[in-house]
């Protein structure tokens, strides 16, 4: 049932998620279209036709209100209260790797370098983290399947516990080749793939990009990825430049994601109760 809500969004090709995109300059992913704009150009040729919805009944009205209300506000879940720049600084999120490990595509996100160590620009990190958390919250609100991926053995246990606490899924083990691309054979037919993949480290144990990033891009699954100064941010939908090596930073991120997802799910339950009550009040039959 819930997957239909997300698939309708995907079929139209419009990610209607956030007006925050307007604020972000230097759109890295022009193929992601913001709300309602008809697009031109080679990237979004399939995105124009909007499916007309069927006849509105009382129950679909309620469902539409539940689904559309959060999209009308920029920060519906008030996630900006969860963290501040100072919290990020205290958790040492701004510390990158040495100059020799720097990835070319991470240069826009770096503030500078001090004694050969790269410093990540926390102003940009705040914006990116805000939008990433907002997106995660919206996905969780719509009952999407969120998969946490990290191949760092130091933090594998932490990531698994985070996923368990939010009621979502984790994969901190060896990634078998066809997990996303060959899913019906691996798991059985009728399996539901994750609707969002959160990479708490985009590198694997041999410092190459995790296979999941490329596979998610192939399968049209949006990704939120924590990119350090030695990572490649190009295939990640919502990159969050930040440190992925320090335990303090990882604990901060896990706490933030857990709180976001729990907040979103609680909000959904609340909305359903409220709307259900109001619908029952309006129409005695339903």
């Amino acid at each position, binding site marked *: 049932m819930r997957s239909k809500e997300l698939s309708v969004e995907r079929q139209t090709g419009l990610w209607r998620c956030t007006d925050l995109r307007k604020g972000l300059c230097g759109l890295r992913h022009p193929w992601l279209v913001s709300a309602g704009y008809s697009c031109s150009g080679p990237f979004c040729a399939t995105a124009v036709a909007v499916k007309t919805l069927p006849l509105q009944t009382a129950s679909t009205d309620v469902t539409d209100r539940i689904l559309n209300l959060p999209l009308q506000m920029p920060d519906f879940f008030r996630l900006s209260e969860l963290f501040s720049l100072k919290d990020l600084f205290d958790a040492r999120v701004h510390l990158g790797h040495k100059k020799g490990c720097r990835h070319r595509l991470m240069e826009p996100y770096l503030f500078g370098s001090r004694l050969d160590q790269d410093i990540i620009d926390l102003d940009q990190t705040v914006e990116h983290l805000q939008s990433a958390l907002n997106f995660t919250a919206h996905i969780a609100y719509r009952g999407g399947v969120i*998969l946490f991926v990290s191949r760092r053995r130091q933090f594998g246990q932490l990531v698994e516990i985070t996923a368990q606490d939010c*009621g979502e899924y984790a994969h901190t*083990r060896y990634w078998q080749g066809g997990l996303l691309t060959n899913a019906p054979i*691996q798991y059985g037919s009728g399996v539901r793939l994750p609707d969002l993949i959160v990479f708490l480290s985009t590198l694997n144990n041999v410092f190459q990009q995790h296979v999941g990033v490329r596979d998610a891009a192939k399968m049209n699954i949006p990704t939120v990825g924590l990119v350090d100064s030695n990572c490649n941010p190009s295939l990640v939908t919502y990159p969050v430049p930040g440190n992925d090596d320090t335990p303090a930073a990882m604990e901060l991120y896990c706490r933030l994601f857990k709180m976001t997802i729990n907040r979103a799910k609680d909000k959904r339950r609340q909305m359903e109760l409220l709307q259900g009550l109001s619908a029952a009040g309006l129409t005695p039959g339903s």
Partner: protein
Amino acid sequence: MAASSGRTVGSFLWKCGNFCFNFNTVSSNLTRQVLSRQLCVSAVFHRKNLAAAGPEKFSEEFIKKQVEEFNIGKRHLANMMGEDPETFTQGDIDRSIAYLFPSGLFDNKAKPLMKHPDEVFPKQRAVQWGADGRPFHFLFYTGKQSYYSLMHDTFTKALAVEKHQDRLRGKGLFTQDAKQISLVGSRWLLKEELEELLVETISDHDYARFIQLMERLLSLPYCSAEEDFVQRYRRQLEIQSSKQQVQPLQYDQHGVAYSTGDGRRKTATGTVLLRDSGSGSISINGTNYVHYFPVLQDREQLMFPLHFMGVLGRFDMQCSVSGGGHSSQAGALRLAISRAMLSFLSEGQVETMRQAGLLTPDPRIKERKKPGQEGARRKFTWKKR
């Protein structure tokens, strides 16, 4: 009674004649409907990727139906054999099936069998996700959820033990000689046993990692808190003793000490009753040993254990032997006499007998003839052209 039972067996056999006995299962369906589906489980047993076999080859209702049919069939079988249906055990079922369907085949897996469906059908996984498509287990997307969940739990326990130790160190109550888990007489689960437990195939590497993690948990001084968890993954070893089991000496009504022993050689088996009366007479199957064994070599074989220990005239022997030829019968009796003598001897003497090879059963049997050869080793005459 015989006629009626003959008829039921006949009808039963006619019905079961539809089944191909090459397959592993024969479900004794004695109700009116004949099971036309032929169940081939061999492919499922050897399949590596259980998920690729389909969501469920055997659904819940199917298994339940099989269990009901099995129970009804068991009662019918008990009635047929004239036993009480309430106390009809699996051993009785096996014996009855072996009686009703005598099979000349050698392989046990090829013979007809009737077992509870839980033993016959492999344990299958039910569908792993709910109506909305969300999987139940949080590690579902790893592919090996049970195994990784086990690793996760073990590691959590190890971390908890380490935290407990740190708290004790902080209070100053940490001691190295805390109570340890006793691992003597038990072994880790084998890879096959673990696979059976998890209902999942795991690789050798995974298994090695699991054992490594458990060993790490056991290396912590305060791991006794997790003893139950650890013991779940250990099995008791069977106690094997390398010493000879020496029977105690028995006394008959006249106070004469006696003991028995038995031995085998090739296809001959012999038993001997050794009496400490002091006359030195030997009777085999009722006749004197000189008449029974005209050949000197056989009589020497009989005497050798007594001669070796220097007790030639002490014992009285009553032997019985059957099977084989005269040489193997003599060898069987020699082993029987040596074993019977153990009760009369001390530890050191037992050891000398063992070293002399008197207590070792001779394992040599007739080697089978191979196809393409005239005998076991002899080849057909080689012709150059």
